[in-house]
């Protein structure tokens, strides 16, 4: 079973990289661009038969290592 994890900085955490990318795109003439936030994407393959067990294990991985909950949010999806 394969899952993806999308990790983004929380809304109130400054994202200087995203800001620079946004600014560059706007400078390139993409003037309808309103906002841009940069994040991380992780793909995981897990050897489980039950989707709910797999999901809860990935949830655990996120909380224990993959995500810093002070500054980041995450979203798990099956792929």
């Amino acid at each position, binding site marked *: 079973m394969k899952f993806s994890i999308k990790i983004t900085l929380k809304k109130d955490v400054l994202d200087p990289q995203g800001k620079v990318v946004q600014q560059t795109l706007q400078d390139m003439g993409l003037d309808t661009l309103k906002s841009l936030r940069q994040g991380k994407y992780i793909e995981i393959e897990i050897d489980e038969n039950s989707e709910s067990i797999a999901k809860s294990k990935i949830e655990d991985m996120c909380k224990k290592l993959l995500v810093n909950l*002070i500054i980041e949010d995450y979203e798990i999806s099956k792929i």
Partner: protein
Amino acid sequence: MNSSVIVFPGSNCDRDVADALEKLHFQNTMVWHKDTSLPKSDLIVIPGGFSYGDYLRTGAIAAKSNILNEVIKAAKDGCLILGICNGFQILTETGLLKGALLRNKKLKFLGKDIYVKTMDTDNKFCNKYKKDQVLKFNIAHNEGNYFTSPNHLKELEDKNLISFKYCDENGNINEKNNPNGSLNNIAGIYNDKKNILGMMPHPERMVDQIISNNDGINLFTSLLN
């Protein structure tokens, strides 16, 4: 006093801090990250560098290493812990210190001498400094932008848990003298019990007048007090 310096793959300030400790008469042992026990230590230093290549997040992988389990146990028993630069990042990733170190606001790696103001001296690490004393330290980091929740920031200020704030050479603390965008110009913090100090500047680089200055000496000799 017995000290231990933890060494990770990618640590690069471990020898510097060991030299500083030995020069100031600590009995020091280097401890490899895979070890599962610590020698008898009154002080544990987590040095600067790029542990595990800064993969995932700075300090995140080191925080899960074998030896860090022992450091966490020792910290809870009241052992003195000093985390410098990457060491500070590792301490926040373990949860021993609250908050996180984000990428520098201007996205540049900063390697330069800066000034900090000593905010609190009523603790084991800074009792040889004077309150509000301005010190010249060196910084070398890409992720030193301290971030925490508004409630915790208030707690840090109210309980005097901020060790150093970035300032100019006259001690003025303002946005202009904030190199990396840290909240309230924070350069270092203590835990509630003040047995753990995490700081981005490198005191171990300032223990020799001939090659730099000696503003860092009192941080180590305070511990011997």
